[in-house]
């Protein structure tokens, strides 16, 4: 039941983020607890094993790409293919697929919450004085009036883990081959409302059946106690 509760909480979060750009839904795998070997306490003879139920083994974000939404905003960039943008936060370098960019007072390209976006060399990109005439190429090169201002860096990420604010932690690697950027678009949320609703119902029904199991165990114990007392 506890496992299903966690699953329900994750599904609720997926639905809450149905509009979050670059959001990746959670994927949990369940594993059974280690079995206990029961022994006869008097003779020490093995009786059999006892299963202690299931537990969440690991949770990882499902990195399947969300749909691309056209916005027409010059500072919106969608990643087509695998890979992440790198941003400089107060806690160090983080990774995101949310391409709703903005500028800060220094003229640096930032993510939606103001963390500077980095190029492939780990440097910030200054686009001061350019907004409407900004062009971002499929390779991430930012040009304005024929002048190159910088190139948005992309990395691949192993063991990505979500940490909120659309940011991920993980181990960065080389830029993924074949990935392109699209200006004037953002990657929509990876939440598929229909499949999440189905998962919610399935999860709730198994929660319900667990409850029935607990109740019938309770009844069995009660009967055991009553018949034991009658002896």
């Amino acid at each position: 039941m506890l496992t299903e509760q966690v699953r329900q909480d994750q599904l609720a979060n997926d639905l809450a983020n149905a509009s979050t750009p670059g959001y990746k839904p959670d994927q949990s795998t369940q594993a059974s607890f280690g079995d206990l070997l029961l022994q006869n306490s008097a003779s020490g003879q093995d009786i059999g094993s006892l299963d202690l139920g299931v537990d969440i083994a690991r949770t990882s974000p499902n990195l399947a790409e969300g749909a691309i939404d056209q916005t027409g905003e010059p500072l919106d960039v969608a990643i087509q293919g695998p890979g992440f943008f790198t941003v400089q936060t107060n806690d160090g370098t983080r990774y995101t697929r949310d391409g709703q960019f903005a500028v800060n007072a220094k003229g640096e390209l930032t993510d939606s919450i103001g963390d500077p976006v980095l190029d492939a060399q780990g440097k910030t990109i200054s686009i001061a004085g350019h907004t409407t005439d900004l062009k971002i190429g499929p390779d991430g090169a930012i040009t304005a009036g024929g002048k190159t201002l910088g190139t948005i860096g992309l990395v691949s990420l192993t063991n990505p883990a979500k940490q909120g604010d659309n940011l991920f932690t993980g181990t960065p690697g080389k830029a993924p081959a074949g990935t392109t950027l699209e200006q004037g678009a953002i990657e929509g949320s990876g939440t598929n409302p229909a499949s999440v609703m189905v998962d919610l119902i399935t999860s709730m029904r198994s929660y319900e059946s667990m409850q029935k199991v607990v109740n019938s165990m309770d009844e069995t114990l009660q009967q055991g106690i009553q018949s034991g007392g009658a002896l």
Partner: protein
Amino acid sequence: MSEGVYAAAAGMAAQQSQMDAIGNDIANVSTPGYHSERIGFEDLVYTAEQNGAPAGAGAATVDLGRTSAEGSLEQTGDPLSVAIDGPGYLQVRQADGSIALTRDGQLAVDASGALVTQSGQRLVPPITLPKGADPSDLKIGADGAVTAGGKSIGKITLVDVTNAGGLLSAGDNLFTPTAASGAPAPAKDSTLEQGSIETSNVDLGTAMVDMITAQRGYQLASEAIKDQDQLLQIANQLVK
């Protein structure tokens, strides 16, 4: 236990603020110089539940300022209306003495002959018509140079900020510069067009689609709450 209820509630609140922004955009579909709001969504912190399985706290909106697309220019024939072609703002002084920026170029002449906005703020630097000059004789050049009856009386200065998203909406089509936006500096490459206004850049079609999306997002999050409620009910039936 039941963090999901709060995650879903946060998701509903985020969709609600998106809805509010769209509502405001639609209300300003005829406001000259109005640019629609740019709202972003983000997920919230993750806390470890059972066995370190992360559960998120929902979603929130981030204000990304305004969209940058220019509204179309509409000919008014009024010599006192100017449209800004390109990025930038007109600079005006508010009643408290502070500087504010606007893209609404429907100007007027106040009692002392100064050029003011619809809500009465004077341009910075101020431009005053000489006594007896007819506002219909006013000529405003593409570079902002103002002449009345052939005589130069000043220049309308266009300014821009580094981060337009950091500007604070002050109502009356005005924005005030903040530390996040950077100080206003003269705008490059932008020109003025006399006798026109920039219409609102709100596209009703897009606004309607966004509204439906927000409404469905709200509905989805509420389904998650309903489900969590049912879960608690089942748990409650454990004790008969």
